[in-house]
């Protein structure tokens, strides 16, 4: 088990928490809608590469805000957003944004709030603070020996099919029939992506 080393960058990321807005980029031209339904009125058109802040998600839809508080907010489809892989420098982000905790839920919690995008790469791990975080890296896998005791423990948690069905029932999960997706269908639509981007409405 290796220990992941995080440098003083952790401190920087903690300081950055108050402006928790998740900046994202529109990945394909799309409409900003007033409500999370495809028939909802269009607030405005959003061009590819427009920067937005994600407030929360509801099913297939993300609530986003544009620039300042005066600008409109609305809903876009999940797939029309990309988070930026590399965070923009703090100086270029809008610091007047209100803190919006809890959007994209799990992100604000647990491991990710430590590893969040504002912490950048921690690969330059000389010195400073080392936090006791349990990593599982390539070397751990390469050097691992068998652990039969833990394997026996795993077996003790095995669940039978009927128990799982009851558990599903408790959350009103009803099984549905659906065929696997045909990848050749995607290849066809991939070739006319550019042309199809204007008529992306669901049927």
């Amino acid at each position, binding site marked *: 088990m290796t220990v992941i080393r995080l440098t003083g960058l952790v401190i920087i990321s903690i300081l950055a928490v108050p402006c928790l807005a998740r900046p994202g980029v529109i990945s394909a031209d799309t409409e900003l809608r007033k409500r999370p339904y495809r028939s909802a009125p269009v607030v405005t058109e959003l061009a590819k590469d427009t920067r937005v802040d994600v407030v929360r998600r509801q099913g297939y839809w993300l609530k986003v805000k544009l620039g300042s508080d005066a600008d409109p907010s609305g809903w876009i489809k999940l797939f029309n957003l990309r988070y930026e892989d590399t965070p923009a420098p703090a100086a270029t982000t809008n610091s007047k944004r209100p803190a919006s905790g809890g959007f994209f839920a799990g*992100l604000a919690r647990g491991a990710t709030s430590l590893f969040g995008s504002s912490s950048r790469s921690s690969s330059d791990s000389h010195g400073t603070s080392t936090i006791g975080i349990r*990593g*599982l890296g390539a070397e751990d896998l390469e050097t691992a020996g068998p652990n039969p005791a833990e394997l026996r423990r795993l077996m003790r948690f095995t669940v039978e099919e009927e128990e799982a069905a009851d558990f599903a029932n408790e959350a009103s999960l009803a099984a549905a029939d659906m065929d696997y997706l045909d990848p050749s269908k995607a290849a066809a639509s991939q070739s006319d992506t550019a042309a199809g981007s204007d008529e992306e409405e669901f049927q």
Partner: protein
Amino acid sequence: MKRHLHTAALLLAAALPLGQAAAFELNLNKLGAALGNIKDATGEVDEEREQKIGERLSSKLLGAAALVEIREVQLYVNRVGRWLASQTERADLEWHFGVLDADTINAFATPGGYVFITRGLLLTMDSEAELAGVLAHEISHVLRRHHLEAIKTRAQRELTLNVMSALSDDDNGGLMDSMIDMGMDLYSKGLDRDDEYEADRMGVVIATRAGYEPYGLPVSLLALAEVNTEDDSIALMSSTHPPVSDRLARLDQLMEGKFEAYRDRPLASERFRAMRQQLEKPAR
């Protein structure tokens, strides 16, 4: 000349006493048998053998990271996983699911029906639908025997050339060890990218069949896209999978229009959050 031959014969006799000559012959027989074994081992693998390979790989994965010590969390993930597996063509396998005590973001599957997810990955999620999407992706690797096929391909290529290593044990144990090493290698080097895309597109269908809101997997991927790919917490997952943006783009194109009817299906967030609270408690 005659004299030289005579000397050579004497030298040979000295070098190879009767017993050793016999041993040499035996080795040739073993070599033939080992080549046959490689062919057998890398041909059709029955379910029992697949199970055996999965068990050994799982034992090693658990050697790299133990299970989280919270029984309720382990049972929760097994219930979700077993329900998903029941919606597939290999519902009859004995499926096992485990939460690994690691903050790194990753998930693994082994042949035979073993699926592991790290605590770090679980903590990035906010609903059972997301967990279902990720588990269904891993289940798909088992359904399509992705790891098994990758091991077989590599074994055929490498072991036949390097057959002496397969001779190290009498009953084929050396060969099995080599295959396990190759399997472990897959977890640090990754599967073929097409296998990952296939597991994505099967995963969303399996989660939908199980009655969940269908966007759990893409939502979880979108959350991962936020973590810097070079960060220690996600470096291994990033280096062993296609870029998240590619995976999302492919899912988008495949899912468009086909899943709208299911969008009001449950996310089962409440019980997921209750489980996650237990997971967030400091270790005892």
